C-alpha cells in the first residue's frame, strides 16, 4: 500500500519538478524581456537627460537572477496541488481515474490495479514567442545604448564641445614657445585667451566662438610662418658664412704673403656673424676671428681655428633649426611637405604652381606680392616683385636673395620681407567680424574666348564644311568663328525659316467672314 502511495507521489513530484523547471525558464524569458525593455528605456532617458553614464552590463546581469527568482516564485505559487499532476499522470497512463481516486480518497485498496510502471509524461516547450521577444528586447537595448545623445548635453551643458580644437591650439602654442618663436609671456597670454574662448562658448551662438578660434589659429600660423622664415633666413646667412669660412680656410691654407684678403674675410665674417646671432658670438670663435683680422704671426693658425669653430657653430645651428621645424610640423603649424623639404635641404621649399591647384594642402604659398625684402648684409632696399624664393633675385641687391613669402595681404613686416595677412600680431578680436574680410583672392588668367567649350556656343547655321577660326589682328584676342560661304551645291546658310511660316502668317492675317 505504501509503495503504491510512494510511487504516486514520486511520479507527481517528478512531473511537477520537470514542468516547474521549464515553466520557470519560460517565465524568466518573459521577465527578462520586460526587464530589458524597462532598463533600456530608463537608460535611454538617462542618457538623453544627460545624467551620468551608467554601466548597463551590471544592470543586465542583475536582471538575470532576479528574473529567475521571480519566475520560480510565480511558478511555485501557481503549481502547488498534487492532484493536478496526478490527473495528468492518470490520463497519460490510462488509469481510468484510479490514481486520482486513490489519491483523493486515501483508500489504497485498489493499489494492486495500478499500472506496473507509472510513466511520467514528457514536457513540450513552445519557446518561439518568448525567445523572439527577448531578441527584440536585446535589439531595443542596443539601440537605447547606441542612439546618439542630443538633448541631454544641450540641456545641461551650454558650452560647445571644443576639446579637440582646444588641445590642438594648446599644442601649437606650446610648440611655438618651445621653438623660441613665442615669448613666454605671449604664450601665457594666448593660453589665457584660448581658455576665455572655451569658457565663453555657447551652443546657441557657435559662430562667434569658431570665429575667435579661427583668428587664434591664424595668428599662431602666421607666427609660425614668420618664425620659419626667420629660420630660413638664418640658414641662408649661415650658408654665406660657410662660404666665407671656406674662403678664409683657403686663404689661410694658401699661405701667400698678402694677408689683407684673409683679414678682410675675417672682419666680414665677424660682422655677419654678429648680426645673425644678435651679438652672441661664441668667445673662442670671436677671439680667433679677431686674431685673424689683426694679422701678424699666428694669424694662419687663428684662421684655421676660426674656420673650425665656424663649422661647429653651423652644425649646432642646423640641429637647432631641425628640432624647431620638427616641433612645428608635429603641432601642424607647418605642413609636412614643407617640413620634409626643410629637413632635407635645410630650407623652406619655395611654393610652386602645384600649390595653387585646387585642393593643394600646403599652407605656405607664394603669391604675387609687392612686399619689400631685406637685402641681408647690404642693407639696401629693393623691390622684391614676385619674391620667388630661390629663383627670385631682388633688384639692386648684391647678394643672392632667397626669400619666402606667405599667402595673404601685404601688411607683413617689411624688414623681414614677409607678406602677412589679417590682423597681424594684434590682440584677438572677439567680435562677429569675419576674419576673411581683407583677403586677396589669387588672380587667375582666363583662357582666350576661342578655347572655350563648344557646348557653350550657339548654333546659328548649318554648313557642310568645318568652321574657320579667324586669327587676324583686327579681332584681337577674341577669335571668332565664321562660316564658309557655301558653294552652289551646298546647303543654304543663314537663318533657316520655318517652312510653314507663310501658312502661319496667312492664318493670322485671315479676315473673319
Amino acid at each position: 500500500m505504501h509503495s503504491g502511495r510512494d510511487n504516486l507521489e514520486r511520479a507527481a513530484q517528478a512531473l511537477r519538478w520537470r514542468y516547474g523547471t521549464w515553466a520557470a525558464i519560460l517565465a524568466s524569458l518573459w521577465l527578462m524581456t520586460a526587464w530589458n525593455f524597462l532598463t533600456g528605456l530608463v537608460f535611454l532617458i538617462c542618457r538623453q537627460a544627460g545624467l551620468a553614464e551608467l554601466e548597463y552590463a551590471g544592470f543586465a546581469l542583475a536582471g538575470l537572477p532576479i528574473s529567475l527568482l521571480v519566475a520560480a516564485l510565480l511558478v511555485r505559487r501557481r503549481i502547488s496541488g498534487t492532484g493536478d499532476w496526478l490527473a495528468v499522470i492518470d490520463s497519460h497512463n490510462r488509469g481510468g481515474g484510479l490514481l486520482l481516486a486513490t489519491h483523493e480518497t486515501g483508500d489504497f485498496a485498489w493499489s494492486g490495479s495500478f499500472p506496473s510502471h507509472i510513466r511520467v509524461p514528457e514536457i513540450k516547450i513552445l519557446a518561439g514567442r518568448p525567445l523572439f521577444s527577448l531578441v527584440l528586447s536585446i535589439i531595443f537595448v542596443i539601440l537605447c545604448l547606441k542612439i546618439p545623445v542630443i538633448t541631454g548635453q544641450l540641456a545641461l551643458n551650454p558650452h560647445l564641445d571644443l576639446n579637440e580644437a582646444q588641445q590642438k591650439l594648446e599644442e601649437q602654442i606650446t610648440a611655438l614657445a618651445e621653438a623660441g618663436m613665442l615669448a613666454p609671456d605671449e604664450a601665457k597670454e594666448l593660453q589665457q585667451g584660448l581658455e576665455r574662448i572655451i569658457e565663453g562658448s555657447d551652443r546657441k551662438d557657435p559662430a562667434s566662438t569658431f570665429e575667435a578660434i579661427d583668428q587664434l589659429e591664424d595668428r599662431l600660423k602666421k607666427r609660425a610662418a614668420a618664425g620659419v622664415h626667420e629660420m630660413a633666413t638664418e640658414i641662408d646667412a649661415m650658408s654665406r658664412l660657410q662660404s666665407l669660412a671656406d674662403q678664409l680656410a683657403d686663404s689661410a691654407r694658401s699661405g701667400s704673403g698678402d694677408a689683407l684678403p684673409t683679414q678682410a674675410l675675417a672682419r666680414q665674417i665677424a660682422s655677419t656673424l654678429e648680426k645673425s646671432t644678435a651679438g652672441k658670438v661664441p668667445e673662442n670663435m670671436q677671439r680667433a676671428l679677431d686674431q685673424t683680422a689683426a694679422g701678424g704671426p699666428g694669424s694662419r693658425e687663428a684662421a684655421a681655428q676660426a674656420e673650425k669653430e665656424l663649422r661647429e657653430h653651423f652644425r649646432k645651428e642646423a640641429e637647432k633649426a631641425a628640432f624647431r621645424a620638427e616641433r612645428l610640423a608635429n603641432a601642424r603649424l607647418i605642413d609636412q611637405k614643407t617640413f620634409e623639404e626643410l629637413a632635407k635641404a635645410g630650407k623652406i621649399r619655395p611654393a610652386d604652381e602645384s600649390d595653387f591647384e585646387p585642393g593643394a594642402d600646403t599652407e605656405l604659398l607664394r603669391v604675387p606680392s609687392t612686399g619689400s625684402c631685406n637685402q641681408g648684409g647690404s642693407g639696401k632696399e629693393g623691390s622684391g616683385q614676385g619674391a620667388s624664393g630661390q629663383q627670385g633675385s631682388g633688384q639692386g641687391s648684391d647678394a643672392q636673395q632667397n626669400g619666402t613669402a606667405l599667402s595673404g595681404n601685404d601688411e607683413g613686416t617689411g624688414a623681414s620681407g614677409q607678406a602677412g595677412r589679417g590682423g597681424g600680431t594684434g590682440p584677438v578680436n572677439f567680435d562677429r567680424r569675419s576674419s576673411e574680410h581683407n583677403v586677396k583672392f589669387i588672380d587667375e588668367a582666363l583662357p582666350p574666348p576661342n578655347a572655350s567649350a563648344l557646348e557653350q556656343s550657339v548654333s546659328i547655321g548649318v554648313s557642310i564644311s568645318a568652321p574657320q577660326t579667324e586669327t587676324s589682328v583686327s579681332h584681337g584676342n577674341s577669335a571668332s568663328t565664321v562660316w564658309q560661304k557655301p558653294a552652289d551645291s551646298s546647303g543654304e546658310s543663314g537663318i533657316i525659316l520655318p517652312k510653314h511660316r507663310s501658312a502661319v502668317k496667312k492664318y493670322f492675317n485671315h479676315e473673319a467672314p
Partner: protein
Amino acid sequence: MNDPKKLIAPHDLEQASRQAHQVLAELDRILIGRPALHRLVFIGILSKGHILLEGLPGVGKTALIKTLGQLLSLQFSRVQFTPDLMPGDILGAHILQQNSTGQREMVFQPGPVFTNILLADEINRASPKTQSAMLEAMQEKSVTLLGTTRRLPDPFFVLASQNPIELEGTYPLPEAQLDRFLFKLEVGAASSETLREIITSRRHGEPPVPEFSLGAADLASLFAVMNAIYLPGAVADYIARLVHATDPASGSLPQIGEFVHYGASPRAAIAVAEAARGVALLAGRPSVGFADVREVFVPALNHRVLLNYKARFAGMTSGNLLNILLKSIRETDLEFTDGVRTVTENS
C-alpha cells in the same frame, strides 16, 4: 459502500460488473449485431436515464426494449403514440365506480406510465399536449392528477423511439422534453452478416427466449454499486469544461460560436457523469476515468446542443461538433504557463 471517502470494495464491484456483463451478453445473443448499441442502452439503464432511440421502422428498437425488460425482470408497457392519443391514455384517469356499499366514487385507473419500462413508440407522433404529459413522469417520476401526486414504480425508464422519416403529421419533441433523455441513440441499418444471421436463426423474426434474467435485488445491487463509483475531481472538472464549451458564449471553439444556438444544460453534465459511472462499472473500475467521459459524451449531448441554420447549410451535425470539441478540449487543464505543455498520449 456509499462512503464518499472510500472506494467500493473490489469484490462488490467485481460481482456487479460480472452481472452487468451477463445481461449484455444475453442481450447480444438475443439481438444480433448491435453490441455497441446494447452497451449504451444498458449504461443508460444503469444510470436510471431515459433513452430516445431514433431509427427506421423494423430495425429492432422495440425488440431491444422488450428484451431488456425481460432480462431485467421489470414490468414493461408499450404505448404506440398517435396524434389522437390523449394524456389520460398514458397517465391514467379517474373513473366513476360503485363500491360494494353501493356508493359511487372516483377511482384512479393508472395508465401505462405506471410501469418500470415504458416503451413510447413513435413518440413524435403524439400531440404536444400528450408529449408534455410525459414531462413530470420522466423528470419527477411521479404523476399528478386532480391534485394527487402518485409515485411511479422504481425504477422507471422511458425508452422512446422516433422515426426520422414520414415527418408529416408528427410533432418534433420540444427541447425541454429532449433534455430529459439521457441518451439519444441512432439505430442504423444492420450489416449484411447480421441480416444473414437473423434470417437463418430467427423463424418469423421471433427472438429467442432469454435464458437469464436479473432479479430485482440484483438490479438494486447494481444501482447501489453505480452510486459507489467514485468521480475524481479532475474528471468532474473535465466534464464541466466539456459541457461549458458547448455554450456559444464560452469562446471555446470557433465552430461552436458559429453553429450552436444553445449549448447544453447542467442536466447534460449530470447525465455525462452518471453515464460515465456506468462505463466504469462495466470496466470493473471503482472510479470514473477520462476515457469513460469521452465514450458517453456524444450520445449524452447530441440532442441537447441546438444548432442554428448555418449548421444546416454547412451540413454540420451536433455529433460532428461534439467530436471536434472532444479533440480540442484537453483532459487536464495544466496550462499554468503559456508555452509549456505536458505531452500525454491523448494530446
